[in-house]
Structure formats: structure tokens, C-alpha cells
């Protein structure tokens, strides 16, 4: 090869490589005009396959009617969604809107959200603020910052597998709030627990190593939600001005700890963490496995897996019942709440706000709440939501569901904590230890936990 070609060849290769990157820029003249508003779904509900079609259809409807703003729902599995979101934030590529996001997601990352108080005030008439449930509207006020318009709320109830009750010959729970206690749940749970040979707990030959049906399971729960059912004061976080005191070792918390721990290792009507995980693996939701007679959960269970479980063959009779009353005489039905929030670093705030208003409009939020299983925060569409839910689940007792709002937890169990992420992680670690350590001594373990959480609180307060 001549010297000229030896010199020319590598130059041509380098130019070719560079031109591939420069020359391949697509014609974005049309895309430059339409601002893309990406909605990050997955930190809460909404990411499941059966939920995506309806959301994508809404996006198509918006995009057909708007040329200046393009809406895209992006779905991320819940187990990795938070990490993916934070990675994008750290990389400077935040999505426009995140949701549905629960109270925890919002408080955990409170600095990530845009303050839209001025936009809410500006468009108050269009939003029709009187149509919103006041309690849920105030959940998203972080100090002076207003970060979201509520979308839906998820009251909690006792999900009861009535077929298992009938098989055991046990009377169903009462339908009135305040009519039963956690001690009675324990008694019923023990009557409903049976082993693989069909022998019930308490009968001769019962094998605790091969339990097929458990009387109660705290499925998909965490420390704060599980313990909130025992009505602790201030959800364990006492706020007095700038002073924040952890109270996770108060009496109600000790009672909760001992109830769960005894239920697993002494009375055997609650599965331990290992068994719970095994049963929950491979099923759309643990309640639909048919192996739990009772369990407290929220209305998002209705949108997340129950329909598919029923379609897939879950034929047991089931319904919702009031949560029991705690030993201290107070009944608490912890509530979850979802919303969409605009990310503070997203550059097109006005466009994102237009989409946010659309998401929380009566027509669109009705569809979304049905998909997510949420009770609409907008009062005007609750009847339609109820009718749609009854179409899916005719047996649902809506008196129980609506009455649960009278017992919601305030402050919310997912509410503010200093150094939120670290504190939450520490509390959830305890929840795992409780369900896996037969030797755990609740009073001293909670004392240690409380001391550790107080240190975590003080780290942020000191900054």
C-alpha cells in the first residue's frame, strides 16, 4: 500500500466515526415544538402490566388533542423505581412528574418537589378546590411549600377470606367499628389456622411446621403501618417546635410488637418473614394465595392484583371489614394517599403544571383512581368511582370503606421524620427482625430502636 494510502486510511476512519455521530442527528424540528412531559410511574402503584394500558390510553388521548405538549407515561417496577428516579435526578435528567407517589415518597425526598402554591392560587377557580377532601389536601403541605394536588386516598380495612371462615366454622367478624379488638383477632386467627393435613390449631396432631392456612398476615406492610394499627400517640414521632422526639417505645408500640411476635412464635397464626416471603412469591397478591384468612390492607389492593387474581381463578368469597380497636381503646385505620408531583429541577414548569391539572381533573382522575384502586380525593366523582368498583367487586361493603375515613391516622404514619430515609430504613429493619428472631424481647428491643432512631433524628436537626 502506498505511503499516501497509509496516511489517508486512518484519517478517513476517524472522520467516518465522527460523522456517524454528527450526521445521525434526527430531524427534531417537529419534536422541538412539542415539549415532552414524562410521567414517572412506579414509586407507588400503577406500574403493573394490567394497569399500564389505561394510563397509556389517557396519554394517547391528551396527545391527540395537544400539539405543544406530549405526555408519556414511563413505567418502572416498584422494587427499583426509587433507585432509578434518584439516579436520574443525580444525573440531571429528572422526569417532569412523578406519581402516583404516596406520602412516604413525598416526605422522604421533600427537597425534590417543586413548590406549586402560586400555581394552585392562580388557577384555583379552574381546579375547583372545594371539590377536594380537606384532610387529604393538607397532607401535601410541607411547611410553607405546597407540592401537590391530592389524587386519591386509600383507607385501610381488614380483608377477610370468608370461605376460610366458613370452612373452619368460625363466625365472620363484626361490621361495626369498635366492635372487635386485636385480642379477638388473635382468637379468631388461631381458630382459622390449619396445617397441610387439615388439622386446625389447637386440635390434636396439629403440625406447626407445616401450616397451610394462617389466621392473619400483615402482607405488604411495614413497621409504621403495622404498628399504627395499635393507635400509638403521634405515630411515634412527637414534634414540638424544633424538637422532634422518637416515641417508638411507648406502650402502644410494645403492645403491637408483642402481639405480632407472639402471633408468630407462640400462637403460630401469623407466618414468619421467611414463610411470608415464600407464600407471596409468584402470586399477584398474597391475599389471593388463599393461605391467609385475614390481613389489613388498603383499597389499592383492589386495583393492584385483586381483579387479576379473580380473573385467574381466585374463587374464594372475600370482603372488607372494619379494623379492630387497639388495647388502648382507640381505633385507627391507617390511610395512604397518592398524588402526582412536579420535580423541582424540571425546566418546563408551566407545561408540567398543565399536565398535572389534567391528571387531577375529574374525568382523568376518575379513570386513574379506578386503575390504582384509590378513593378519589375529589368528592364529586366518588359515586362514580364506587359504581365502577362495584362493577368489579359486587360484594364490597362501602359502608366499611367510607367509615374508615373517620378513623384515619393523623398525623399520618408515613408523615414527617427528620432524616426520613435513614429513620424509615432503621424502623423497617426492626420489622424484619421482629418477624425473624424468636428470641426478640420487645420492650428492650424497642428501647434500643428508639434510642437509635433518636440519634438519627438528631443528626439532621443538628445540621
Amino acid at each position, binding site marked *: 500500500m502506498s505511503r499516501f494510502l497509509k496516511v489517508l486510511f486512518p484519517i478517513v476512519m476517524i472522520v467516518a466515526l465522527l460523522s456517524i455521530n454528527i450526521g445521525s442527528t434526527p430531524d427534531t424540528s417537529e419534536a422541538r415544538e412539542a415539549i415532552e412531559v414524562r410521567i414517572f410511574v412506579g414509586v407507588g402503584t400503577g406500574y403493573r402490566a394490567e394497569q399500564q394500558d389505561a394510563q397509556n390510553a389517557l396519554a394517547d388521548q391528551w396527545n391527540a388533542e395537544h400539539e405543544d405538549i406530549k405526555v408519556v407515561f414511563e413505567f418502572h417496577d416498584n422494587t427499583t423505581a426509587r433507585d432509578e428516579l434518584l439516579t436520574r435526578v*443525580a444525573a440531571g435528567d429528572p422526569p417532569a412528574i412523578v406519581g402516583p407517589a404516596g406520602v412516604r415518597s413525598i416526605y422522604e425526598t421533600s*427537597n425534590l418537589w417543586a413548590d406549586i402554591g402560586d400555581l394552585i392560587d392562580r388557577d384555583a377557580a379552574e381546579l375547583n378546590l372545594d371539590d377536594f377532601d380537606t384532610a387529604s389536601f393538607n397532607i401535601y403541605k410541607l411547611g410553607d411549600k405546597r407540592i401537590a394536588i391530592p389524587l386519591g386516598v386509600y383507607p385501610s380495612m381488614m380483608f377477610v377470606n370468608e370461605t376460610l371462615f366458613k370452612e373452619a366454622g368460625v363466625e365472620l367478624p363484626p361490621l361495626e367499628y369498635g366492635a372487635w379488638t386485636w385480642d379477638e383477632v388473635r382468637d379468631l386467627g388461631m381458630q382459622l389456622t390449619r396445617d397441610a393435613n387439615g388439622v386446625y390449631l389447637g386440635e390434636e396432631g396439629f403440625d406447626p411446621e407445616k401450616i397451610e392456612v394462617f389466621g392473619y398476615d400483615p402482607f405488604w406492610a411495614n413497621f409504621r403501618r403495622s404498628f399504627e394499627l395499635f393507635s400509638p400517640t403521634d405515630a411515634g414521632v412527637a414534634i414540638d417546635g424544633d424538637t422532634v422526639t422518637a416515641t417508638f417505645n411507648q406502650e402502644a408500640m410494645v403492645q403491637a410488637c408483642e402481639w405480632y411476635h407472639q402471633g408468630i412464635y407462640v400462637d403460630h397464626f401469623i407466618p414468619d418473614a*421467611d414463610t411470608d416471603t*415464600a407464600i407471596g412469591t409468584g402470586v399477584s397478591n398474597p391475599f389471593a394465595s388463599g393461605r391467609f384468612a385475614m390481613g389489613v390492607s388498603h383499597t389499592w389492593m383492589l386495583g393492584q392484583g385483586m381483579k387479576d387474581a379473580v380473573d385467574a381463578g381466585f374463587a374464594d368469597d372475600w370482603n372488607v371489614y372494619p379494623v379492630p380497636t387497639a388495647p388502648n381503646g382507640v381505633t385507627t385505620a391507617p390511610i395512604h394517599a397518592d398524588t402526582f408531583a412536579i420535580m423541582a429541577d424540571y425546566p418546563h414548569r408551566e407545561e408540567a403544571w398543565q399536565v398535572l391539572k389534567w391528571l387531577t381533573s375529574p374525568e382523568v382522575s376518575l379513570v386513574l383512581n379506578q386503575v390504582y384502586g384509590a378513593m378519589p380525593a375529589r368528592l364529586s366523582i366518588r359515586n362514580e368511582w364506587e359504581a365502577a368498583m362495584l362493577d368489579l367487586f359486587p360484594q364490597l361493603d362501602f359502608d366499611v370503606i367510607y367509615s374508615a375515613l373517620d378513623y384515619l391516622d393523623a398525623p399520618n404514619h408515613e408523615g414527617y421524620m427528620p432524616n426520613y430515609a435513614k429513620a424509615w430504613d432503621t424502623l423497617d429493619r426492626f420489622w424484619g427482625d421482629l418477624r425473624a428472631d424468636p428470641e426478640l424481647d420487645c420492650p428492650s428491643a424497642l428501647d434500643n430502636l428508639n434510642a437509635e432512631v433518636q*440519634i438519627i433524628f438528631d443528626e439532621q436537626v443538628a445540621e
Partner: protein
Amino acid sequence: MATENLSIPGNTQVAELPRLTPRRLQILWGFLFITPWILGFLMFFLGPMAASFYLSMTDYNIERGGDLHFIGLQHYKDMFSIDIDWVDDGGKPEYRQDDYQTAFNVGALYFGAKDYRFWKSIRVTLLYACLLPFTLTLALILAILTNNQRVPGVTVFRTLFYLPTVIPLVVSSFVFQQILRAKEGWLNLYLLAPLGIKGPQWLQDPDWAIFALGIIGIWGVGRPMLMFLAGLQNVPTELYEAARVDGAGAWRRLTKITLPVISPIILYNLVIGLIDTFQYFVVAYVLTNGRGGNDFSMYFYNLHIYKNAYTYFEMGYASALAWVLMATVVTITALIFRSSSRWVFYSAGAK
């Protein structure tokens, strides 16, 4: 330097330009061709390392974004802040600082630390590292067995032993989660129960968690086995013949011929194994759902980094942890290489 005098007729003399000799031209072309690699190295390796080192000296928190402050070596001080208390009356230890918590105790001697999880993660990682010699020994045994051509179907065995290494680690972790379940796990149910042995709670009991991870580690002996096999096949056979003639038995041939000749492979597997141990993360994360097991029994160092970075958003502190890990791995590797002159034999005399 060969130069050419360039001068404009009648006036000034231009500076002398170095002439491009063929040697110099060759060097320039070489640099030109490795420029893409250099750019990649700077952008994706050295650059992020420098950024990470800087961030390790700031209070960078993802949530606060650009609002970060230089704090010097504070993170490193927090990491290594410890206190010791002797408690011989069954009471609780009292440390100098209120925010210190017990990392571990040796009898009545309690060690408290500002970041007690840091010390727990080191303890767990070092415990797991103690299993490395057993894993390498097993790999060597399997390599010796599969090096014997007289074993029927030896190539099939080699394939089977290596096959697990090509299965994604996450998938195999989920499978082992089922195998190691206390009540319905296949190990306890189908292997130990028929022998009348009540299997432990492999993943729940802190005393058995490391052994459970050791069992999972056996799944990955294929790679070091393959390296040992390659080394064994390069041992000169005349050495064995000469040894047999001299009356050396199997054990002496193993210890006096095989092990010295494959000692470079042992060094390689040891170093790679230690690096993998200090980077252990996926299995522990999957098995414990990121929790690190009961009583921190599977709370590895990398899990601690992950928690600080992506759960607590403390990227600055996580960067500092990462640099401590790097320094530790480099130090240990250097010590191993330094010691290798005493036990590694290179047949050509090279080091």
C-alpha cells in the same frame, strides 16, 4: 534534536522546527490510534474517580442537589471514630459520645462507633473472606479430578462444574433463596430431613448466614476450577515421571511438583477471589431484599455503600466508603504480591 534552519531570505531567522523523524512519526501515529481509549479512560474512569474523591470530602446529598459544602476529611473521621468500654456488670456500655452505638463486643469489651454499621459490614465481609481458602481448595480438588483423562465423561463434568458461572447471579440467588428456606427449603426438606437432621434457619439465623453464603459460593467454583485446570495441564509430565522413578507418592507429587508449578494460578485466583469478596453485593442484596439479614448477618461492605448512596442519599459519605474500600483492596493485594516471592514459583525465573 534534528532540526532544520528555516530563514526568510534577507531578514530574520525563523525559530528552528523539530524535524519529524520516522521514529517520532511512528510514536505520534501510535498516540493517535490509542486516543479513543485515552479519552474513554479519562471520561469514564479517571474523571469519575477524581469526582468521587472530591465528593468524598463534601456533604453531597442527592436530595439537596448542588447545595454541597467542602468538609475535608470529616467523613473519614466519622468512619473511624470508635470508643471502647468495659462492661462487667451486665449493664449497658457508656460511650464518650451520645451518638455512638455498639458495633460489636468481645466478651465484656464493647466497641462503640459513630457509624456502627460500617464496622459490622467489615466484620461480615472479613468473615466471608475466611471462606475463600475453602472455596479455592474445592476448586483445586475439582480441577485435579477433572484433569484425569481416565475418568469417564470427564469433559461432561468439566462443563457441569463450569455451567453455573454463566447463569446470572440474580437468578441463581432467587433459586438459592428457595433452596435455603428453613421450613420448605429443598436443602432442609430433601437432604437433611431424610437423614433425621433438623436443618438450621440458613438465612434467618445470624450464626448460619455466612455458611449459607458459603454454600452459595460453591456454586461459583467453576471459574477458579477452570483456571486451575489450565495450570494443571501445563505441568510438564516429565517431572511426574521423574518423581515416580524416585519413588514419590501421590501426596509428594502434589505438594512438591503440582502446587509449586501452578502457584502463579493460585496467586491469580487468590487475588481475584479477594477482590470479588470485597465487592460482594448481589447475592446478599437479593437474599435479604436489601436489608442485610437479621442482626446484620449478611450486611456486606458494598451493601453499606449502597445503603448510604441510594437509601440515605448520602453520596458524599458513600464516596468516602468507596475510597476506603479501594485503599483496603489495593493494600491487601500489594501485601499478597509482596509475599508471593516466597511461595510463588515461576518456571522461567520471572517475577
